[in-house]
């Protein structure tokens, strides 16, 4: 690798997400309303709290994993022939 400062070089855009996630982890909101339960978890108080969205579906402290491929890629090109068009693999 060219960079002497890093031992790993992610090829995807996860680099930015990693930096952001580290930032989020360090932030703790002081006026978090924890009265709703005794376990530290998101109460929707503020989005820079380190617990924010661990139970809700907004910005998670860590970058979310890639989407699960639940459906076949209908709109993908035909990888075998290079034939492609919007809407289908031809």
């Amino acid at each position: 690798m060219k960079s002497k400062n890093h031992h790993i070089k992610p090829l995807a855009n996860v680099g930015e997400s990693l930096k952001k996630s580290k930032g989020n982890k360090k932030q703790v909101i002081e006026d978090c309303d924890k009265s709703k339960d005794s376990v530290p978890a998101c109460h929707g108080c503020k989005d820079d709290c380190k617990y924010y969205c661990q139970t809700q579906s907004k910005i998670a402290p860590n970058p979310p994993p890639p989407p699960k491929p639940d459906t076949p890629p209908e709109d993908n090109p035909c990888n075998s022939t290079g034939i492609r068009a919007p809407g289908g693999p031809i």
Partner: protein
Amino acid sequence: MQRNSVHFFSVKDRYFAYDINTTFCTELDSVALTIMPELLSGASGNLEKKYAHVYPTPQLHRCIKECNELLDSGYFGVGHSPYKHRIQNNVSAICLHIAHNCNLSCEYCYADTGAFGANRQLMSRHIMQKAIDFAFVHSGDFESINVGFFGGEPLLNFKLIREAVEYARNTANSLNKKVTFSMASNAVLLTPDIMDFINRENFSLLFSLDGPQKVHDRMRKTKHRKKTHAVVIKNISEYLRNYSDNFTVRGTFTRTTPNFSDQVLFLNDQGFKSVSVEPAQLVETHPHSISTHGEITRILYEYDKLADLYLKRFNKGQPLHFYHFDHCLKKLLDPKPTHTECGAGGGFIAIAPTGEIFPCFETVPEKENCIGHIDFGFDTHKRRIFQRMHADLREECRRCWIKYFCGGGCHAFNIRYNNNIKIPYKPQCEFIKYRFKLSAWILSEIMNGGERSVKILKKHLNE
């Protein structure tokens, strides 16, 4: 940590780790190559101490931190999550075999120079209309469908294409849906009138052109052995100049033209923005097939050469378009695991001039691939074989590291070459793996140029 979920590979003196499940890839230096496997194996001891005689402690410390951050990210070393395959019953794209005939007689044609092993025939108006009706009836909640025109040479039946466009537009309007069109053509019969029509109707186009004159004319001749390079170049260039650059040019290479990087360069130098050059799909016994280990290795050599050219041209500010590298680079930048290569037989179907339904254009005309008829509907049992198929149902794919990148390969190739949809076609596997590795190398090199270089690459990939 999931030790078995990460595949390590090297290419051109670079080392990479690839998460089989998320398809996320990272480059590693020698320190990380030592530490990452340890962490993936769940090493709990003091790694700094263990490797203190090999690397300086600050280096080890930093590397362990970087590796752990990546492992915590959810992108890497996360392990297998069971895949719930959803069967797609609704049709989003239909490929009309509008002409089982061709004006050319290409030596490497997989479709028996357009006849598909049967009588040469054109699709009738009756079949065309019923096929379009069939597609819309089975489109479910898809708001738009794509109607493709394929052959043989579809322009031999251009009159019917015009009618089909009008018929499909009217049908779509009556159902409050949309329709788009596509066509694969050898471009010999393009006239200003046809160009005007396909541009106006916003066709997504694929033109066949093998590259330099000597390569093209060796294979792509008319039935009367007349060369076609000059007319094809003239027509495509005219379309590019007067109408649009929104089309793909596809070339083919064979055992006897293995130096296909020349074809890629030639097509790029014509100003074409989307270039795809593919191996001829022929059975082992065909004189132009690529099937032996030696022939496959020769092709890998050429991909290697093309990767060097891709990077060289990128650094010169003249980036190349080559579908497979472009496609791999996009997926490396934005990993999205996939369990099937395409929607053949599910969202995508092909209709023969007889009205028979096939999973895709590559599976026509073998009767055993037929999954129904537009008069009688789908043969649900046969269609299900294609709809259900995905990488994890193939034994060899299940054990393969790149399965969620390629989705388990092409159903049609597996059937054609191995007579079994579940047995992958090995040359294709070799090509996919090698192109992926080379693309990782290309991306790593481009990333060394900093953020600006990556931005330029992304712009190029989205052209």
